[in-house]
């Protein structure tokens, strides 16, 4: 069948085809060997009856960069604070190199934290801030001096050693905080929204620097953020948290292309969702009758869906638009999933243009297209009739 061929071609043309990565069981560690550096087992923390962290379990390999992503109030900071020792879990274990650290006092843990508002000591100079942890570790004067110089060079703060925190810019303060938390070479570095206070440009360059530092020092980082672009940029794996639970722990690609639930699909990125009922099962192909988009063909998901009521989800950039009329192009004419509608909204965003298409069923879908040419020859206008089409492979099947 032509459509199937097309679908396959589409997959093959996509660089770094996801099929292999998406097929892996996601909770396993990439290249896992033996003991993880940190194992969190069923950790629970309640504040006055409300479970801020509700049974979180995860493993982190040494050298990994893990992001905890979730909406505000979902328990990210609480989880991090338990790892740092500022909160004691009500239930569960936290094994660092096999040792349960749940009851170890903060100053005795080989873990350091970079605080959300940096928490720099206002009465100490940049140098003394960075040296603070080294002095507590009982290093000699010469060692401290060398290490501070090394850290100052690493975060590019040369010449500012004598300044006080209030004489620094936001970006510089952020660097001091990073240097201070790295100075002791912790086995695990916790970063609580380390870039939230920076403006966009600075945040992006700092993300690159964070990754560079992490790779160079071979340390293990856990970063908390509510910014999904940031999580995707810096992290090897992302743990998505919702209401105290770990909703999914996966690579950025898995998370985006194979979200495990509708909530995750809608939280990470933009997505169109069509609710419907499974009508027929062929080999590796399901037919779903939807209310808003007619009958859709979808690939069978890896984890078989038990219920008949499902949601078919598809990302806006995976919807293709074509002009309607006599010169209907071959691809759209033979596409399995083919909808028609009228452009109801156009937002030009620079690299992409985002369209809203009002389908004939009345439902509105979002489609986004790369602006691959300077001139607007490919653009669609408001009110224009278009065909919206997509392949079965690009759909994700979810529980309603």
């Amino acid at each position, binding site marked *: 069948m032509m459509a199937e061929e097309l679908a396959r071609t589409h997959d093959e043309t996509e660089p770094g085809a996801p099929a292999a990565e998406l097929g892996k069981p996601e909770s396993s560690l990439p290249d896992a060997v033996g003991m993880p550096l940190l194992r969190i087992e069923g950790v629970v923390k309640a504040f006055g009856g409300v479970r801020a962290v509700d049974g979180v379990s995860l493993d982190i390999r040494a050298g990994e960069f893990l992001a905890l992503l979730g909406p505000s109030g979902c328990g990210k900071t609480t989880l991090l604070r338990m790892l*740092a*020792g*500022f909160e004691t879990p009500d239930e569960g274990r936290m094994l660092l190199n096999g040792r349960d650290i749940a009851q170890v*006092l*903060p*100053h*005795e843990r080989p*873990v*350091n*934290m970079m*605080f*959300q*508002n940096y*928490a*720099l*000591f*206002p*009465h100490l100079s940049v140098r003394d801030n960075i040296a*603070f*942890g080294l002095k*507590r*570790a009982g290093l000699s004067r010469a060692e401290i001096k060398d290490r501070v110089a090394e850290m100052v060079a690493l975060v590019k703060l040369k010449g500012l050693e004598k300044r*006080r925190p*209030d*004489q620094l810019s936001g970006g510089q303060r952020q660097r001091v905080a990073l240097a*201070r*938390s790295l100075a*002791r070479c912790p086995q695990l570095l916790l970063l609580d929204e380390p870039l939230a206070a920076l403006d966009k440009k600075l945040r992006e360059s700092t993300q690159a620097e964070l990754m560079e530092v992490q790779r160079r020092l071979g340390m293990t980082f856990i970063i908390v953020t509510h910014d999904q672009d940031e999580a995707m940029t810096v992290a090897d794996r992302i743990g998505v948290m919702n209401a105290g639970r770990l909703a999914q722990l996966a690579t950025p690609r898995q998370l985006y292309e194979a979200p495990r639930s509708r909530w995750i699909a809608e939280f990470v990125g933009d997505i169109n969702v069509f609710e419907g009922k499974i009508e027929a099962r062929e080999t590796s192909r399901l037919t779903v009758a939807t209310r808003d988009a007619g009958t859709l063909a979808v690939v069978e998901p890896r984890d078989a869906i038990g219920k008949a009521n499902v949601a078919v989800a598809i990302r806006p950039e995976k919807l293709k638009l074509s002009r309607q009329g006599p010169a209907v192009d071959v691809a759209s004419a033979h596409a399995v999933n083919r909808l028609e509608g009228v452009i109801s909204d156009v937002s030009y965003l620079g690299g992409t243009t985002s369209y809203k298409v009002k389908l004939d069923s009345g439902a509105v879908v979002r489609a986004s297209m790369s602006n691959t040419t300077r001139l607007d020859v490919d653009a669609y206008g408001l009110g224009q009739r278009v065909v919206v089409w997509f392949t079965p492979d690009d759909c994700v099947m979810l529980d309603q």
Partner: protein
Amino acid sequence: MSARAIFTRPARLAAIVPYLWMVLFFLVPFGFVMKISLSQTAIAQPPYTPAFDLTAGLAAIGDALAALSLDNFRLLISDDLYLLSYLRSLFVAVVSTGILLLIGYPIAYGMARLPRRWQGIAMMLVIVPFWTSFLIRIYAWINILQHDGLLNRVLLALHLVSQPVVWLSTESAMYLGIIYSYLPFMILPLYATLAKMDRALEEAAADLGASPFKVFWLVTFPLSLPGVAAGVLLCFIPIVGEFVIPDLLAGSNALMIGQTLWLEFFTNKDWPVASAAAVFLLVLLLIPLLVYDRLQRRQFEEVK
């Protein structure tokens, strides 16, 4: 009328009020005291000469000015009654302020660490004594400390002593009274500083390997120094000039400068010497204030 004019005129008037207040109730009276301190004692009404008579003409005023002298200040220096009073006042103030800091700091620290909703109640408890007049509270202490007072009765009943102990008119009673009276003035500024301190700083210190004691000594305490300075000044300065507490609770062998002043003024009717002693006391108390001001200014400049 422009909006600016509407807003600036009352604003300017409001800014003048504190200056007016200072001039009227501090500078003018201080001028009188200063003038009396340069006069001679006399058996008259008022009990000093010269007395300015503005109706007597310029020549008379000139004579009066010429009659002013620094004799009283010379007397202050030459008679060690005054010197000893000043020294005793300073000594009592230093010791009391030290004890107040030692007692007040842990209380303020504990208050600042209470759950939010308890902090208001703790604050009320600190302030509640102010609802009763200070004098009444000191008289209550006399009642407690006297020969057959509450303290001795309790001690006797518990068989801790076989004879009533002399508490009243001792140094201990005076220090007790001072510390009792001034404790809120030490606690409140300390509490204000500690309560608004960012707890994340202490967590950061612990995170970097500081033991709880080091966290306190290297982070909490240095950052609470502005509160310490405010509390110390708020206690030290009035204690130096304290009169009522030593007069009612201490023995009569050594006098604080406030008592000496009172003696000169009311018993000896020597207004000029009393005034000179007061002027000197004021100058003495300006020193810690100036030091405090300098420190604050330096801190401010460092920030810039």
